[in-house]
C-alpha cells in the first residue's frame, strides 16, 4: 500500500504523465458530454414529433368521409426512442433511421424510407465514449506503460533496481498499478458522474465499467509483454503503434470486406420493385381473384359483402396487403442477410478488441444492428395492428363515425430492445 502511494506521488510529479491524464479526463468528459447532448436533442425532437404527429393526424382526418379515405390519410409515427445508455455508444443511431410514419398501405413500400442524418458527418464518425474506450484507451495504456522498463534502463537505474527478483516485483507491481488506477479513475469518474446524472441503472453502469476495466487490463497485459523486452522505448512505441493499427483498424476492415463478399445481401432494390409490381398488377387483375387471394390470408373476412364497383376500399387494402405478401420472402431474406453479417462480424471481436468493445457497448446501449432490426420488427407488428384496426371497419361496412377516428392506435415504444448480456472480450 505504501509502495502504491509512493508510486502515485512519483507518477503525479511527472509533467508528461499529468498532461496525458488530463487529456484522458478531457476526452472522456467531452465524449460523454457530446453523447448526452446528442441524446437529449433526439429526446426533445421525439417529444415534439409525438405531439405534432397526433395533431397532424387529427387535422388530416378532419375531412375524411369514409373509413378507406381515413386509413389512407392516417399516418402514425413509429419511433425508437434513445435508450438510457445510448449516450455512451451512439452506434447505429446516426445512420439507421429511428423515426418513420406509417399508414395501412403496403408496408414494404414504406418501411425502407429513411430519415437519416447528414452523411458527411456520419462518414467522419462520432467521438462518443465507446470510441474513446475502444480506440483511444489502448493508446493511453501504451503511452503510460510502454517505456516502463526502458526508461529506467535509459537512466541507468535498471541494474540497481533489479538487484533481486523480489525487488523487481516490489518495484513494477505498484508502479503499474499506480499508472492503471489513475488512468481508470480518469476514464471512469466522468462516466460515473454522467451515469448518476442520467439515472443509468446500476447494473448497466457496472457492465460499462467492467468493459472499460477489461479493455484497459487487456491492453496493459499486451503492452507490458513488450515493455519487458530488452528493447528501447522508441522501438516498443513503434511496435505498439503498428499493433494498434492492425488490431483496431486493418483486421476489422479486412473482415468487413470478407463478410460483404461472402454474404451478398438480397438487393433492396429488388424488394422495392417486386412489391410495386405486385401492388400495381392488382389494378389489372379481376377483383374476385385479388379478393380470393386476400381471403386466403384473412379468412375471417371471406363472408363479407363482395366488391361490386370498379373501385372499392376493401379491394384497395386487400391488394396493398397482397403486395407485402408477395415480397415477404425477399424481405425476410434481406433482414436475415443483415443479421448474418452482424453475426459474422461478432467473430471479428475475437481478433479485434476494438470490435469487441464496440459490440459490447452498443449492445448494452441498445444502439447496435440488433436494436435497429428490433425497431424494424416493432414497425411490422404495429402495422399489423393498424390493419387490424381498419379491417373490421372496412369489411363489416360499419357506417362512418368520425369520433371513432380517435381510436386509431398509437405506437407505443418498448423500453429497450431485449436485454442481452454484454459480449465477452
Amino acid at each position, binding site marked *: 500500500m505504501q509502495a502504491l502511494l509512493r508510486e502515485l506521488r512519483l507518477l503525479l510529479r511527472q509533467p508528461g504523465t499529468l498532461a496525458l491524464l488530463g487529456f484522458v479526463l478531457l476526452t472522456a468528459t467531452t465524449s460523454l458530454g457530446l453523447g448526452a*447532448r446528442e441524446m437529449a436533442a433526439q429526446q426533445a425532437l421525439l417529444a415534439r*414529433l409525438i405531439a405534432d404527429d397526433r395533431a397532424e393526424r387529427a387535422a388530416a382526418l378532419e375531412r375524411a368521409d369514409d373509413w378507406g379515405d381515413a386509413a389512407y390519410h392516417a399516418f402514425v409515427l413509429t419511433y425508437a426512442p434513445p435508450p438510457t445508455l445510448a449516450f455512451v455508444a451512439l452506434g447505429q443511431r446516426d445512420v439507421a433511421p429511428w423515426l418513420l410514419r406509417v399508414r395501412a398501405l403496403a408496408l414494404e413500400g414504406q418501411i425502407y424510407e429513411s430519415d437519416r442524418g447528414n452523411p458527411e458527418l456520419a462518414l467522419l464518425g462520432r467521438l462518443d465514449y465507446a470510441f474513446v474506450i475502444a480506440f483511444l484507451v489502448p493508446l493511453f495504456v501504451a503511452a503510460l506503460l510502454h517505456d516502463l522498463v526502458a526508461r529506467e534502463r535509459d537512466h541507468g537505474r535498471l541494474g540497481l533496481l533489479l538487484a533481486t527478483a523480489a525487488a523487481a516485483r516490489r518495484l513494477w507491481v505498484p508502479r503499474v498499478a499506480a499508472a492503471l488506477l489513475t488512468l481508470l479513475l480518469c476514464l471512469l469518474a466522468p462516466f460515473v458522474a454522467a451515469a448518476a446524472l442520467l439515472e443509468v441503472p446500476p447494473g448497466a453502469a457496472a457492465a460499462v465499467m467492467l468493459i472499460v476495466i477489461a479493455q484497459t487490463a487487456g491492453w496493459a497485459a499486451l503492452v507490458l509483454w513488450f515493455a519487458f523486452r530488452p528493447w528501447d522505448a522508441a522501438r516498443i512505441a513503434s511496435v505498439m503503434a*503498428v499493433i494498434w493499427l492492425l488490431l483496431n483498424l*486493418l483486421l476489422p476492415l*479486412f473482415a*468487413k470486406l470478407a463478410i460483404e463478399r461472402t454474404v451478398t*445481401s438480397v438487393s433492396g432494390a429488388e424488394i422495392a420493385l417486386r412489391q410495386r409490381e405486385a401492388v400495381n398488377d392488382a389494378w389489372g387483375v379481376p377483383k374476385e381473384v385479388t379478393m380470393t387471394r386476400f381471403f386466403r390470408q384473412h379468412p375471417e373476412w371471406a363472408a363479407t359483402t363482395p366488391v361490386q364497383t370498379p373501385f372499392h376500399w376493401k379491394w384497395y387494402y386487400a391488394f396493398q396487403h397482397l403486395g407485402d405478401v408477395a415480397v415477404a420472402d425477399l424481405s425476410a431474406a434481406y433482414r436475415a442477410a443483415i443479421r448474418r453479417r452482424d453475426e459474422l462480424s461478432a467473430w471479428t471481436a475475437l481478433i479485434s478488441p476494438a470490435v469487441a468493445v464496440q459490440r459490447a457497448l452498443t449492445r448494452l446501449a441498445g444502439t447496435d444492428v440488433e436494436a435497429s432490426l428490433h425497431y424494424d420488427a416493432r414497425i411490422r407488428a404495429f402495422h399489423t395492428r393498424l390493419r387490424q384496426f381498419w379491417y373490421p371497419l372496412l369489411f363489416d361496412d360499419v357506417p362512418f363515425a368520425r369520433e371513432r377516428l380517435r381510436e386509431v392506435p398509437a405506437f407505443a415504444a418498448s423500453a429497450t430492445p431485449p436485454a442481452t448480456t454484454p459480449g465477452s472480450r
Partner: protein
Amino acid sequence: MNAVLRIAAAELRYWRRSRLVSVTFGALLGLMLLSVLSAAAHIGEERRTREADQARTREHFLAQPARHPHRMVHYGHYVYRVPPPLAVLEPGVDAFTGRSIFLEGHRQNSATFAAVQETSLLARFGDLSPAFLVQAVAPLVLILMGYGSVVRERETGTLIQLWTHGIRPWQLLAGKAGALLAAALLALAPVAAAALWTLVGHRDEALPAAICLLADLLYLGAWICGVLAVSSRASRRWTALSGLLAGWLLVVVIVPRVAADVAQASVPVPGMTADGLRAGAALRAAGDGHDPRSPAFAQFTREVLARYGVSSVEALPVNFRGLVMMEGERKSAEIQQGFAARRLAGEAAQARVARRFTALSPALALRWASMTSVGTDLAAYHRFLVAAEAHRYEFVQALNRLHAEALNYADDARRSADRTAEQRTRIDAGHWALLPEFDAAPAAPAARAQAATAPVLVLAGWLTAALLLLRRAARALGRAA
C-alpha cells in the same frame, strides 16, 4: 546534389536493414494494391448494377399497359444513384447514402437502402479504400520510417561526423526528405495506376484525378516535412516518436470526429419526418389534386373558366380534373421542395462547420479535396436528390397534362362507379414513352475541380507551414553544426 543523393541512398539502406520499417512499408504497399483492386471491383460492380437497375425500371415503366394516366403517377418510377467512376479513389459518402429513390405523385420520398445499414457495425470502422490508406495509414508509416532519421544520427553521434565531412544541414534534410518522398511516391503508385485505369473509360475525369493525386502529394509532403522537422529538433528518438504519434492521433483520429460533433450540435437539422409533419398543414391548405371541388381550388377554377371563356368546368375543352391535378402537384411540390431546400441547406451548413476544422487537421482537408473532386461529397449527393426531384416533377406533370388533354371530363368523373366510363379513361400505352431519361451526371469535371480549389489551397497552406518548420529546424541544425 551528390551529397543529397548519398544521404537519401543511405536512408534507404537503413530502412532495408530495419525489420519494422520493411514490414510496415511492405504491408502499406500490399494494402494499397489490395484496396485499389477491391475498390475498382466494388465500384465497377455497383455502377453496373445500378445502371442495369435504372434501365430495367425504365423498361418496366414503358411496358405498362393502357390505363388511366393518374395510375401511372402512382405506379411511379425508381431512380438509382450511380457512383462516379473516380469513386474508386475516394468512396466518400457513398456507403452512407441511399442507393435509390421511389418517385411518385404528391410525395417526395427519401433515398433508401444505404450500404451502411446492411453492413453491421464494422461499417463504422471506415473503408479499406485507397483514400483511407492515404489519409490515415500512410502518415503513420511515414512517421515510423522517418521519426528517427535525424535524431538517430544525433543520438549515435554521427551528426557531428556529417558536419565534419562538409555536409550542410539543408543537404542532410533534403536527402532524408528525398528518401521519404520516394517511399510516399511508391505508396501512391497504385492510386495513380487506379486513376489512370479509370481514365481509360472516362477521359474527361483527368483533371479531378490529377487534383486527387496532387492533394495526396501535398498531404504526404506536409507529413514528411513535419516528421523531419520534429526529428531534427528532438533530443531523443523516443520524444520525436511520441510527439509525432500524438500529432497523428489528433489530426487523423480525433479532430475529424470532434468536427462532426461540433457541426451536428451547431446547426440543428430536424430531418425528413419532422419536415413531413410541419408540411402537413400547408399541403392541406394547398388542396388535394384528387378533389377538384376542394375550396382550395376555387380561385384556380375561376381563373381557368375565365381563361377559356366558359361558365362551367363541364364546358371546358380540356379535362378539368387533369388541370386540378397539375395545379395540386405544382403547389404541393413547391411546398415540399421548400422544406427539402432548407434541409439540404442545413446539411451543407453543417458540412461547412466541419470543414473549418481543416485548420486543425490536414486529413480533413485531404478528404474534402478528394471527395469534392471525384464527386462523392455531400454536394454531389444533394445534386442527386435535387435531380431526382426534378425528374419526378417532370414526368408526373407530363402525365397530369395527358390527364387533362387526352381524357374526357365526364368519363373521368364517373370512372369509379361506371365500368364503361372507366374503360374509356384508359389511354394508349404508347404515351408512357414520355418518361424522360434520368440524367444524374455528376457536376462537370471543371466545376468539381474548381470546388476542390479551396481544400487544395488549405493543403498547400499546411505544406507551407510544414516547410517553414523544416526551415527553422535546418537553421537550428546549422547553429549546432
